[in-house]
């Protein structure tokens, strides 16, 4: 008797889409047409079978990283599976739907790259692509990520503290704020090319922190996740991670870090100042004008029937940052 033990890496026969079905996908699509093209464009099935994606299957290549693991940043919480982290992204430069970035960003070029640390510093720094993973010792940190839309993930990031870079640049005493900017490259980013794709945002995307926030040990520059370099949809080659603030503060694909003496304008605040503040600290007591922030849905494993609604914690549970905001009215400074 022949007993076949499939290797872990082998794709099960049942998972393979029959070629005739694959080739027939446009006709199948049309036959579903009743529900309308608009529904299909936002339809989740696009993620399931990638029926609507581009025909080429080129996937951005990530590379394994060398890093240490600090006990301080380990967690008992269930990690969000890698597949979900890299397929559910708000990165309007590649389209406004959560499934757009994974579809539209695979050909994004991250090498060469230049990240400059400039402005009110003694030693301006320029980091090239290689420097991003080599100039600083990399460590893994598992952080909760709380989106302003009331869902959250648990992500094993790899990178280095933002403070280590800023200290190396040696800020002048006048410096009070840190401004960040995403790359502006309309050729590669359809959302920057076309206002209708990019959600009406004036690019480049901008973010900012107070200098003391930026120097807090939790503020992190990530170059990887799940042991490998970042895929473009997650902000390759380098992005900010500020785990006690809503996700939109964690700006992706950064080219500029500028120290200033004035509070820098930040993208979502410019777009809707009554909905998104400069601070954007996670706070269950301060609701978004259009929805409550008291709870969140934690995206880990499991489908629709998983009961994943949990209490949102002040500062996303990172109490150690509370001192930064002592005496401040967090309702006003939301």
């Amino acid at each position, binding site marked *: 008797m022949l007993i076949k033990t499939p290797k872990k890496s082998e794709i099960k026969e049942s998972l393979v889409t029959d070629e005739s079905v694959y080739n027939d996908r446009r006709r199948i699509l049309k036959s579903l047409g009743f*529900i309308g093209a608009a529904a299909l464009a*936002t339809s989740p099935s696009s993620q399931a079978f990638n029926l609507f994606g581009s025909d080429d299957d080129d996937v951005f290549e990530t590379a394994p990283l060398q890093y240490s693991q600090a006990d301080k940043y380990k967690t008992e919480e269930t990690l969000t599976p890698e597949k979900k982290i890299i397929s559910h992204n708000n990165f*309007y430069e590649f389209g406004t739907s959560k499934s757009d970035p994974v579809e539209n960003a695979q050909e994004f070029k991250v090498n060469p790259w230049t990240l400059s640390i400039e402005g009110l510093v003694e030693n301006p720094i320029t980091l090239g692509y290689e420097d991003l993973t080599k100039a600083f010792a990399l460590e893994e940190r598992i952080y909760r990520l709380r989106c302003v839309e009331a869902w959250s993930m648990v992500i094993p990031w790899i990178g280095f503290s933002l403070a280590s870079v800023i200290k190396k640049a040696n800020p002048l005493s006048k410096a009070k704020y840190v401004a960040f900017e995403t790359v502006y490259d309309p050729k590669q980013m359809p959302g920057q090319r076309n206002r209708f794709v990019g959600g009406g945002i004036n690019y480049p995307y901008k973010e900012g922190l107070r200098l003391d926030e930026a120097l807090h040990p939790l503020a992190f520059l990530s170059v990887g996740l799940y042991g490998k370099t970042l895929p473009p949809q997650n902000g390759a080659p380098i992005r900010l991670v500020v785990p006690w603030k809503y996700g939109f503060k964690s700006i992706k694909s950064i080219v500029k870090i500028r120290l200033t003496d004035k509070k820098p304008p930040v993208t979502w605040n410019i777009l809707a100042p009554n909905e998104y503040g400069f601070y954007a600290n996670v706070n269950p007591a301060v609701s978004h004008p259009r929805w409550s922030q008291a709870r969140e849905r934690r995206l880990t494993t499991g489908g629709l029937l998983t009961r994943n609604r949990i209490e949102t914690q002040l500062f996303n549970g990172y109490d150690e940052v509370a001192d930064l905001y002592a005496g401040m009215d967090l309702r006003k400074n939301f």
Partner: protein
Amino acid sequence: MRLRLLPKHIFGLKLVIHLSALLPLVFTFYQAISDQLGADPVEDLLHFTGISAFNLLLISLMVSPLAKTFKTAALIRVRRVLGLYAFAYALIHFLVYIFFELQLEWQLLISEIIKRPYITVGFVALLILSVMAITSTKKSQIKLGRKWQSLHNLVYLSAILIALHYIWSVKSDMVQPIIYWIALFILLYFRLNKIKSIFIKKRLA
């Protein structure tokens, strides 16, 4: 131009409507439950059911202008089933919100309906569709007499509230909601006289 529709054509059309409304629903829920619907099945289901409900309602509003254009009164017979599916999708949209988004936090449900304008208008639209669905039978039509038509004219209000619900719910991407507003205006334009008469009658009464 005149289009002749035989009973078998209407039957075929209804069959297509049933299949294309039910199959995607079953398929999408199957994917959601088995965790094959992206990272956040709740969000995807909310979009899918919401947009589909709106699509179905707009299609149902297309029926009478089409019937007039092609002089085929028989086509009106598919309008009810389209409207009922629009209601069904809207109801499922609401149930997904209660069961999977809020996960049965009833107090929050009530306060959200009251506090958040985009949820308030969506809820009112659903109430209108519910009343229309309940009174969609021949029996009700006979029982309500002339009132039936006035009651079912509320569909225009419901469609406007749904368009409002949609454009208010998005973060910054207005393109698609605006396309829906335009489609809705075109459909309402076909009935400009009727809509005018609704308001004039009200003023006289």
